[in-house]
């Protein structure tokens, strides 16, 4: 392959302070593309299944894809992965911003970080090389302070910084790694893995070139995609970022409110896009190479937080910190969201564990004595903000919450498990699968726990409507049934779930954003010309899809080796058996089993032990223990 890749990976051992830069094997590129594919392959090869996330042998990987940093729309992405401490299985996630592009311009496709430093360090990466530098002066600083201090100290404002805040330093399990201050990746506690390695930050600036195999065909192929992206999504993102989707979940009765006691939020007008746009938004920006600017800048003009300036709001901000916690003071939501970014906390899992505690408080499972005097009533913004600080600093009641809902529920007993909304240890997202069942299947089968982004099945509200990223006819083709658009039908959902997971798996490996890889633009037919003209490869849609399928199956084998069984592919009991009490989806539960059975059938995975069949393994060129074959 003569373009797209730099063909260099830095293998960095923090125990011995050694850096080794090696080329990438062509077979690895062909089979796994980059990004999430590389991460899964390397974790399987290098981290034995009996190693825990906090063993120095765990590796932390930053991997770009062959399209990262190119003209391909949304190609800013960096994929970050490791064995995650909250779940004990592989986690990888994608962040936007500028880091991925700058890493490639600095002459590297990926960083594989092994071992543990004796003292806090950071990596300083430029066109001229990699230095492991002392980070004592940054330890204890939050993400914003770290980002700015590293730029100040190096007199280089063009650096892109990926770092952890205090939460990662303190080993909190619900941490992420923050990129360019406000972009995040690594649910399941990858911030804590970075902290455990005594690695505070990776700062990179490069201005080299990324080669392209066939520039003119590549330009034409990118333009086809870009024009479609602009036509379909530009105005929507410009007007309402990704947070405009909130109203969609409310409309179908799938907005997790009060920890899923309800699925519509009674104060939606206070946390919706219109309110935010009118009173807070002051500007927009975009990740590198993205024509769909979903990144907004805001300020608070009055009240307790007057003068507060922040960036990057998504639907998650309003769903999790807002409706899920019953909080409808926009000022407090924005402050809480920004604090989580500063501390390096997961902005899904952190509000999730707080909402869980609120429900346990209401049910009398925990009391004011347990919370250190905090009144954990729904919508108590000051309590939310206070708990965020406690969780990050590992103090007070935050010590317990920082381990996530699964461990809290196990320790609190007294029915607490009923309110702990997680799959495989990872907290669910604020879309209730009783109102949007395909999301339920996605939570149950996601390879990193309850993550909506593995399948990103948002078609249910798109069929016949204007919101979905997939067209009706595409979903009918993928699922093989016209029933796919019927929200509460289970037919075709398993087949669709498999396809969407695999499509996202190769999308995450190419270095493009979910805004593409969850949509029509992420179909293999849409992307092969872009990929082949960039790299000189010879994929057709089937072989590109097969890469995604291989990654999904390899993640599956890894999970099975780490103790996951088919019984873990399920949902919290509330979603399965507690009917929604109100709203458009009143009376519904998530009918998971038929969807899951269809999913297993299409995957050709054993219902008994969870493994892919010998035939499926042969198709994706893996053996039963995850080695590449053929």
């Amino acid at each position, binding site marked *: 392959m003569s373009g797209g890749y730099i063909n260099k990976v830095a293998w960095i051992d923090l125990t011995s302070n050694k850096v080794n830069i090696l080329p990438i094997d062509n077979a690895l590129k062909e089979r796994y593309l980059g990004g999430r594919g590389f991460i899964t392959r390397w974790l399987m090869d290098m981290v034995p299944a009996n190693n825990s996330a906090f063993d120095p042998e765990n590796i932390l990987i930053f991997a770009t894809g062959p399209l990262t940093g190119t003209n391909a729309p949304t190609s800013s992405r960096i994929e970050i992965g490791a064995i995650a401490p909250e779940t004990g299985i592989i986690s990888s996630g994608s962040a936007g911003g500028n880091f991925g592009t700058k890493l490639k311009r600095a002459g590297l496709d990926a960083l594989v970080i092994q071992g543990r430093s004796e003292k806090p360090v950071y990596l300083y990466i430029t066109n001229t090389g990699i230095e492991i530098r002392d980070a004592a002066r940054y330890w204890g600083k939050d993400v914003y302070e770290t980002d700015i201090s590293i730029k100040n100290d190096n007199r280089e404002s063009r650096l892109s910084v990926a770092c952890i805040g205090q939460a990662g330093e303190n080993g909190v399990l619900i941490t992420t790694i923050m990129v360019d201050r406000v972009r995040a990746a690594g649910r399941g506690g990858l911030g804590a893995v970075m902290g455990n390695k005594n690695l505070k930050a990776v700062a990179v600036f490069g201005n080299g070139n990324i*080669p392209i195999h066939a520039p003119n065909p590549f330009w034409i192929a990118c333009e086809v995609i870009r024009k479609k992206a602009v036509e379909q999504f530009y105005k929507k993102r410009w007007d309402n970022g990704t947070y405009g989707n909130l109203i969609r979940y409310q409309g179908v009765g799938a907005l997790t409110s009060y920890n899923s006691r309800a699925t519509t939020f009674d104060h939606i007008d206070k946390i919706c896009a219109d309110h935010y746009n009118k009173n807070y938004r002051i500007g927009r920006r975009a990740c590198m190479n993205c024509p769909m600017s979903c990144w907004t800048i805001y300020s608070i003009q009055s009240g307790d937080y007057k003068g507060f*300036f922040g960036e990057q709001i998504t639907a998650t901000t309003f769903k999790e910190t807002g409706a899920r916690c019953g909080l409808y003071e926009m000022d407090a939501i924005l402050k809480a969201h920004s604090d989580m970014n500063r501390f390096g906390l997961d902005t899904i899992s952190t509000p999730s564990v707080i909402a869980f505690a609120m429900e346990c408080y209401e049910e009398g499972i925990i009391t004011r004595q347990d919370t250190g005097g905090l009144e954990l009533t729904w919508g108590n913004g000051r309590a939310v903000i206070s708990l965020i600080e406690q969780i990050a600093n590992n103090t007070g009641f935050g010590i317990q919450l920082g381990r996530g809902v699964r461990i809290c529920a196990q320790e609190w007993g007294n029915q607490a498990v009923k309110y702990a909304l997680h799959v495989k240890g990872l907290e669910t997202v604020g879309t209730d699968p009783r109102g949007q069942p395909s999301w339920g299947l996605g939570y149950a089968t996601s390879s990193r726990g309850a993550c909506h982004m593995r399948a990103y099945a948002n078609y249910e509200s798109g069929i016949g409507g204007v919101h979905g990223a997939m067209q009706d006819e595409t979903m009918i083709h993928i699922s093989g049934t016209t029933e796919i658009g019927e929200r509460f039908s289970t037919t075709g959902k398993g087949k669709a779930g498999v396809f969407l997971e695999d499509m996202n798996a190769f999308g995450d490996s190419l270095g493009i954003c979910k805004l593409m890889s969850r949509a029509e633009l992420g179909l293999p037919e849409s992307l092969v010309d872009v990929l082949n003209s960039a790299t000189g490869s010879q994929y057709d849609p089937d072989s590109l899809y097969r890469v995604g399928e291989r990654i999904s199956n390899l993640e599956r084998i890894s999970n099975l080796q780490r103790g996951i069984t088919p019984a873990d592919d399920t949902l919290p009991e509330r979603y399965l058996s507690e009917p929604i009490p109100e709203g458009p989806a009143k009376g519904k539960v998530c009918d998971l089993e038929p969807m899951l059975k269809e999913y297993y059938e299409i995957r050709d995975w054993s219902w008994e032990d969870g493994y892919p069949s010998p035939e499926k393994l042969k198709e994706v060129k893996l053996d039963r223990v995850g080695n590449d074959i053929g």
Partner: protein
Amino acid sequence: MKENVLFYQLNRCTGCQLCVMACSLNRKGVCGENESLIQILTHPLLGTSQPMIEQNCMWEDCDQRCIEVCAPGVLVMVKQKDWGKLLKTNKWNPVPVFSKEIQQ
């Protein structure tokens, strides 16, 4: 020097750099800011952005891909007869010009 001047719309640039990529790919067949005649300046704290062009942009012929890829419509090529009209709106400015040693 080209008769037309590149103008940009104030407060609209998102900093995506697709224009930079388009220019470098067109000129040298690679993706990278060094080969591009248009650059984007983004404030490291506020995130606001604006374009600037290297002076060779005023002499090199091209197919104006930077304008084509810009989704928010930040860039526009303006004939002399319209310079005054645009400046008067307080919404458009000519893209500033800088010079550096570049590979021709």
